[in-house]
């Protein structure tokens, strides 16, 4: 019996092997644990043919869209984002001559790209003739990144509409994120007609939220399933969102079918030289695509992402997907890197990057964190980018700091130590004008300071919040936020409501009735935080001197030590933001005392009864208020540490001597 079973297994294995030669099953494709997790109201099936000579994609597309609103829908709106690269009059390319340092004015005809909906049907209704590009945001008539599809028969509330059509994409040479590069490298993101979001706005009105493609913004779409079959030459190695359902080779061609569930987007890449490195974390199959010259870096990058899995699972919530595809593009495809798409992230590394330079790991962790903040907590990145980029920056810092030491989590090389969190803070505090503008505003309203304000200031803001309310409360906020809003479209008010309720539940009114005092000025104001210590005054005992009334007469006296001895510590608030402050005072005998201040007045004098002189004072000694622009002026000592100044002055002299001696060899 045992032999029989074994023989049957062997025969089955042979059959599967033989089939795999033809079909090439890569894995058991089950993209998500359990589910459905989301409404899945925008689902797509696409059959795509890639013409590698012409750099053209042709695709049949089936869109299944459910009207979840109480409105009757008379028009569908589609993102057509490849048209951002059609010409330099698109809103994306207008008024600039380069994109992130990549000049484009001298591009040849074949290096531009576009997307066109050839035809679209709803059942028997041909909607093609009424298609019209619209510009809901800036009225730029030459921008063709949003397509309006007027419907002949509207979609009633709760109804499901199915649209069949086909479209063509002329793939641009990589500007940024989407495009081809030499040696058949392809990065396809925002590459297909995708439905916008029909939702209730802040004032309670329902309508389409389908913004044009701006340089700083990208994501907002509904959850759904994606089944995407891509036909290419069989030398290409493909990776995409979700898992590989099947891979069929036929006469030098290969059709790879990807399947994803409960995701808001689908991206893919192809390149003949990708090496595939496979690994797993708990239930998640990790598939990393890496060019041969970067293969030695794969364990570092996968290790960093595994740390992120572990951390976010513990501090935010479980990762429900069964797959993650990590892409490390080749150097010439680097403009397709550093991005995040559902279950598909792209990084960027360099041949033999020293281990002490950990930016490549940090970037991959950053993109992975977007699986939560954007992927599952699908906030509107175009309107409220801080809700994903800011949170992701915070978690990138936390994760890398947790699995390294905080002072070297970004760089630990040649005596230079830089931590991720401190780098984020410095990106904000080092701005030439940290009051440049509000953080919470749509991406297209930023003319400068987008990254320092949206990423770094928000990350530092969350760090400060965690320091104020405590790690446990902060974790509870994030867990509650994730639990309530995953696979939905949370807004600022939703996060703040969760934060308020958790803080009230755990601390009562200790931090006020809500956290408006914290979030309002930081998200909607431009004030900065800068506290400092002005002086320490060891006054001691003051005598009573002068003329005093005694009965009817006036009497002069000068008595020594009539008042108890005291010292003063004078502190100030230079910035407009107000935070409660702690003051740590250290006395000459080594004893310490902690005092509190509400931080409100512009100047405050701590009068400290003491016979022992104060040696030093430190405002916010645990650096809880990490938003403070200048942490050096938070402390003051009467005993200067001259050795530190001597050390760096001497080092400067030494290096200058070395340089001059070396230069003199030439003359």
């Amino acid at each position, binding site marked *: 019996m045992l032999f029989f079973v074994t023989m049957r297994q062997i025969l089955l294995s042979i059959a599967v092997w033989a089939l795999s030669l033809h079909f090439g099953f890569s894995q058991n494709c089950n993209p998500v644990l359990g589910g459905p997790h989301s409404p899945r109201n925008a689902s797509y099936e696409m059959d795509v043919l890639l013409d590698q000579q012409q750099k053209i994609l042709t695709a049949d597309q089936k869109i299944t869209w459910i009207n979840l609103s109480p409105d009757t829908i008379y028009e569908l709106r589609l993102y057509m984002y490849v048209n951002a690269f059609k010409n330099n009059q698109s809103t994306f390319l207008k008024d600039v001559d380069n994109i992130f340092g990549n000049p484009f004015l001298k591009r040849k005809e074949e290096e531009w790209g576009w997307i066109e909906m050839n035809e679209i049907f709803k059942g028997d209704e041909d909607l093609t003739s009424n298609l019209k590009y619209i510009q809901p945001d800036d009225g730029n008539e030459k921008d063709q990144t949003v397509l309006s599809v007027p419907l002949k028969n509207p979609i009633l509330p709760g109804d499901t509409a199915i649209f069949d059509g086909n479209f063509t994409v002329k793939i641009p040479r990589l500007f940024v994120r989407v495009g081809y590069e030499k040696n058949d490298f392809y990065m396809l993101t925002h590459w297909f007609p995708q439905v916008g979001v029909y939702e209730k706005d802040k004032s309670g009105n329902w309508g389409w939220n389908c913004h044009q493609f701006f340089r700083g913004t990208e994501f907002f779409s509904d959850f759904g399933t994606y089944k995407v079959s891509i036909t290419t030459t069989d030398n290409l190695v493909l990776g995409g969102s979700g898992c590989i359902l099947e891979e069929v080779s036929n006469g030098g061609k290969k059709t790879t079918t990807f399947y994803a569930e409960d995701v808001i987007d689908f991206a893919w890449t192809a390149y003949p030289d990708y090496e595939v490195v496979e690994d797993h974390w708990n239930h998640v199959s990790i598939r990393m695509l890496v060019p041969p010259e970067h293969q030695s870096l794969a364990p570092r990058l996968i290790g960093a992402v595994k740390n992120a899995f572990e951390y976010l699972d513990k501090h935010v919530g479980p990762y429900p997907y069964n797959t993650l595809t990590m892409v490390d593009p080749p150097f010439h495809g680097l403009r397709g890197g550093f991005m995040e798409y559902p279950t598909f992230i792209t990084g960027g590394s360099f041949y033999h990057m020293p281990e002490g330079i950990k930016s490549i790991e940090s970037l991959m962790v950053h993109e992975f964190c977007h699986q939560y903040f954007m992927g599952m907590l699908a906030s509107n990145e175009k309107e409220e980018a801080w809700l994903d980029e800011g949170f992701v920056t915070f978690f990138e810092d936390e994760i890398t700091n947790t699995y390294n030491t905080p002072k070297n989590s970004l760089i630990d090389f040649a005596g230079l130590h830089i*931590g991720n969190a401190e780098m984020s803070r*410095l990106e904000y505090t080092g701005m030439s004008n940290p009051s440049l503008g509000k953080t919470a505003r749509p991406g297209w309203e930023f003319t400068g300071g987008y990254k320092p304000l949206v990423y770094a200031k928000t990350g530092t803001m969350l760090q400060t919040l965690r320091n104020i309310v405590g790690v446990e409360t902060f974790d509870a906020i994030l867990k509650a936020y994730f639990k309530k809003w995953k696979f939905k479209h949370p807004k600022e008010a939703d996060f703040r409501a969760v934060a308020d309720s958790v803080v009230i539940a755990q601390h009562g009114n200790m931090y006020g009735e809500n956290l408006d005092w914290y979030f309002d000025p930081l998200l909607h104001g431009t004030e900065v935080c800068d506290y400092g210590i002005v002086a320490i005054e060891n006054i001691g005992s003051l005598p009573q001197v002068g003329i005093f009334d005694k009965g009817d007469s006036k009497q002069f006296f000068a008595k020594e030590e009539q008042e108890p001895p005291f010292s003063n510590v004078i502190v100030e608030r230079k910035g407009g933001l107000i935070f409660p402050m702690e003051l740590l005072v250290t006395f000459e005998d080594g004893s310490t005392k902690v005092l509190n201040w509400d931080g409100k007045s512009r100047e405050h004098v701590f009068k400290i009864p003491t016979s022992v002189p104060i040696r030093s004072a430190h405002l916010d000694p645990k650096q809880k208020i990490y938003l403070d622009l200048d942490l*050096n002026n938070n402390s003051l000592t009467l005993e200067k540490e001259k050795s530190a100044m001597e050390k760096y002055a001497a080092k400067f002299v030494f290096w200058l001597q070395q340089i001059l001696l070396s230069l003199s060899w030439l003359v």
Partner: protein
Amino acid sequence: MLDKFNQGWRFALGSWRLIFLVYFLLLMLVLPIGMQIYHVMDASIGNSLSLQTLLKDYDHTVWMDLLNVHGASLSPLLGQLRWIVPFYLLIAVFLQAGLMGAVFQNSPKWKTFWEQGAHWYFSFLKIGLFFLIFFLLGMLIIWLPFSMYIININEWLVDETSLVWLFFTTIFFTIIFFSLVFIWSVRSRFFKMENQDTGIFKAIKMGGKQFGKNLIKYLFLYLFISLPAILFFVLYNVLEAKWGMISPALVWMFVFFQQIFILLRIGLRIALYKAFL
């Protein structure tokens, strides 16, 4: 070659007065900037407890906050380097002339140094200018492939491995070229000293010929005499990484090592001159 090596070392040891003289002049030039660095730090964060952090280790936050808030005080100091470097190069011509003159006369005395420095200054200035321009042109040629590669990187780069190796190869050739130019320049100056009536270009030409004939010998001497400096520098960095400048005593100990290293470098220069004579 061993004789030359020994002669170089012996003469350098006997030239301690010249070593200290050159060291002193160099120190006088850089010390004012070092003192200003000290004073700017003192005035900006001198009373901050952040200095305790800085004493222990490099701290990016402390430095960046210092630069963000007090950067305007520090940038003029770095601006001073713009004129200190060319000024020092002009002085360096005199220092080289003095040291080489003392070596040539076999007289490691201050008087010889000053006399020879003054005597050969303008001749050596011309020779120095020639080699400076020659070196810059050489750099242009050596770095041209790399620059072209970088400029057109997107057009023909398949992967960055070739770029990395090209970079290291270019660095290697830069060091080799620097060494060759240095030895050739020293030989040319000695030829000028040996043949006082010779013109500058003939001295350069003959210096080159002499160097070419004894290329291997000179390169080995250069390598062996430079080796202690490299070893000392590595040792210094190992010790500093291990112990750190984290207390007043260690700060002054390492400052002492730093200055010893500078003295050693000047001594090695004299040893090289003697060996190349």
